[in-house]
């Protein structure tokens, strides 16, 4: 499969945007700029190949709906930051790593294998949403990436905290 060449300028521009967005949401990009730009290049390559920015360290299926959880920032970033100090590919790191007090290491995969994932997805859609007799004036939506909650008719086009797109929101209440 021929892979389109991605220019250094294009990578730089995405790097600057991600750095700005990370900073405004209280996140940190890996301070190892060369590795970070390599990962961003991989992310951009995935965007070009599959039509969505799947994690560069995971094998995308090519079916967006099956891979929503690994579109960067992935659903596993925040729990991995808490437990290990970095996300799976180490594009995002903790404050301690950002300040150079620790270095990121290769961490175990938190994403469940495919059969377990499919099962969970099925039970999730069943759970949504029986209501239990509560009366809310608006539905509550949760960002599956960072946990941001909002009560409105529909989720926002983009999460104001982590910039994940609308499709990453799920009905919470």
């Amino acid at each position, binding site marked *: *499969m021929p892979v389109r060449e991605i220019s250094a300028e294009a990578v730089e521009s995405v790097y600057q945007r991600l750095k700005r967005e990370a900073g405004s949401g209280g996140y940190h990009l890996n301070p190892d700029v060369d590795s970070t730009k390599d990962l961003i290049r991989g992310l951009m*390559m*995935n965007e070009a190949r599959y039509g969505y920015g799947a994690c*560069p360290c*995971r*094998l995308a299926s090519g079916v967006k709906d099956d891979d929503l959880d690994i579109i960067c920032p992935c659903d596993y970033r925040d729990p991995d930051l808490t437990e290990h100090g970095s996300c799976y590919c180490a594009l995002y790191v903790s404050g301690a790593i950002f300040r150079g007090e620790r270095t990121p*290491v*290769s961490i175990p995969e938190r994403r469940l294998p495919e059969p377990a994932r499919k099962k969970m997805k099925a039970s999730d859609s069943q759970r949504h949403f029986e209501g239990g007799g509560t009366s809310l004036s608006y539905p509550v939506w949760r960002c599956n990436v960072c946990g941001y909650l909002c009560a409105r008719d529909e989720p926002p086009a983009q999460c104001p905290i982590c910039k994940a797109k609308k499709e990453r929101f799920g009905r919470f209440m």
Partner: protein
Amino acid sequence: MSVKEHMKHVDGKKQGDITLYALSTCGWCKKTKGLLNDLNIDYHYVDVDLLADADKEEAIKEIHQWNPPCSFPTMVIDNNRCIIGFNEKEIQGLKTNAG
């Protein structure tokens, strides 16, 4: 074609039969290849994301035997054990004292 035909050989000192399943976009895979190169270890690798669908399926099946979650990098040594992820210590341990 099969996965075997897509394997690339990196020449070095033979420390067993080493096969690395990697992704072309993955940072940890890049570090793994870099460390093997620095240690001058002989190995074969394949970037699974660059394979056509049928070969990709075959590669996934091969990886699954060693590492059911199919994460990358997965390195198979002598067809009897594997190293998952960029595990610097274990990779350095591949190099025998004689190497």
